[in-house]
């Protein structure tokens, strides 16, 4: 805020000190993980606080192959990528229908989709597992992809509906006069126009899918995802902190990269979702 008084500026400067410490605390854990990941086990025993003076990539190599993180990583990539793409397609179609088309029970169906926000996976844990078993989807990538899509869908549909209701109806009418069928209107007009919102959603959904543990713990009992793998690693390698932290670094790296690349988009996407208008 401009033109703050002198006393206020002083107060703000004082407040900056604890806020700065808090900011450092936010960075410390990832620094801790990275720093120790480059140490040997003996280095860590000798000096746990110091910087890794002779960095070694051994831990990463071991974690990647011997602790099977390569396999887990691939599983996470497949599930996340599949779910994110499916989420984009499904929520864009649903948002288009809810925002731009007129059909009976439109509001009711919107309410049904939103109301499933009331049903997190914990609430339907047992029947969800049985549904997955009945559909033969347990331990399959497609099962995990469908589960992620189902559980992260309502927010995406809400975002796309809000985004598409902001577009002029005339665009769709123009396309209809141009002879486009509804599917063509969606593909040629709505999907490309929705890209800004869809990209934001893709990033946010990537975070949710990649970071998930509960759903993947339930669905992928044989083929672990990265997060399930890491939590198992914790028990196995509790006396090999450098190896364990290198696993953490591997698991966090894609998210950190995504955050650095798309920080503004992530921040504004969440802000828009929180308080639209």
């Amino acid at each position, binding site marked *: 805020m401009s*033109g703050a008084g002198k006393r206020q500026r002083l107060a703000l400067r004082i407040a900056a000190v604890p806020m700065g410490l808090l900011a450092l605390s936010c960075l410390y854990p990832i620094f801790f993980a990275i720093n120790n990941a480059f140490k040997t086990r003996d280095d860590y025993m000798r000096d746990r606080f110091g910087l890794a003076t002779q960095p070694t990539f051994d831990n990463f190599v071991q974690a990647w192959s011997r602790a099977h993180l390569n396999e887990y990583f691939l599983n996470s990539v497949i599930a996340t990528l599949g779910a994110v793409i499916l989420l984009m397609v499904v929520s864009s179609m649903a948002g288009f229908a809810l925002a731009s088309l007129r059909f009976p029970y439109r509001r009711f169906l919107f309410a049904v989709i939103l109301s499933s926000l009331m049903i997190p996976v914990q609430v339907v*844990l047992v029947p969800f597992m049985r549904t997955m078993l009945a559909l033969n989807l347990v331990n399959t990538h497609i099962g995990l992809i469908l589960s992620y899509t189902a559980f992260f869908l309502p927010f995406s549909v809400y975002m796309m509906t809000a985004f598409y209701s902001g577009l002029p109806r005339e665009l769709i009418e123009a396309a209809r006069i141009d002879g486009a069928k509804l599917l063509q209107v969606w593909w040629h007009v709505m999907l490309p126009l929705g890209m800004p919102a869809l990209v934001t959603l893709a990033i946010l959904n990537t975070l949710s899918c990649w*970071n998930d*543990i509960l759903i993947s713990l339930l669905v992928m009992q044989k083929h672990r995802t990265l997060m399930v793998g890491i939590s198992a690693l914790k028990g196995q390698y509790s006396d090999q902190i450098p190896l364990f932290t290198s696993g*953490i670094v591997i698991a966090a790296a894609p998210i950190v990269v995504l955050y650095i690349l798309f920080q503004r988009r992530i921040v504004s996407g969440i802000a828009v979702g929180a308080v639209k208008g």
Partner: protein
Amino acid sequence: MLFLLPAILLVLVFRIFPLFWGFAISLTSATSTDPGQFIGAGNYLRALDDPNFRSAMANAVAVLLSVPIFVTIPMLLAILIHQGVPGRTFFRSVYFFPAILSSVIIGSIFSVVLSFNGNLNALLNLAGISGVDWLGHSATALPVTLAIQCWSTFGMGVLIFLAGLSTVSKEMVEAARLDGAKMWQIWWHVIIPELRPIIEFSTVITTIGLLTSMFGLIYVLTGGGPGTATTVPEYLIWAAQGRLNRPAYAAAVSMVLFLMTSILAWLQIRILSRNANI
């Protein structure tokens, strides 16, 4: 409508239909292999006597009591950033950083840092204070877990409040200053009342978050223990379904959790649809 079909189908098959099915299961004595028999409210009555359930509910109450902290801290930080604290752009991007990390990652790191021979205790020993088994002690395990949850999510709250603050009119604050209001008076009489909808929203989503997204952290940090010190309802459901092989009982606890979250989610949907205008 054909375009809506995939969305509706997914939500129906994986969420809405299982909800009803879950209620049906909660009224039986089913195990993972046996469909069991109808036993009415048996599982619910059993829960009342179950020490695990009781302490899960007690822990849930403790968690809910911490909600004001989870809302106030981000609000104060956001107002300070909005008022132009030196270094605010740095704070804004760094504060959000823990919020993007998986609870598994955060839990893993803290389990190393906070373990009995971990970094924090090593630091305390250097200062001549004897260490505490932060996560292995039933008095400290839940507060510490909550503190970590708070630390890892406050950035999200800051973000939401900042979005809300950007809608507070500058003219109004300036008018208040011309009227001779001091900084704390402006906060108390102008800014915080204007933020009311955001406070509501933030309270609702924080509460839902605390009830349904601490699983990862607890799973990695404490496994619900020591004893049942950090067993919250969502963790109890998971344990009862898997380790304890009591799916019908798990389904009953699920229904209790559903009752709690649905009241909150209903509030959230009201806020969301008020903003979506369709």
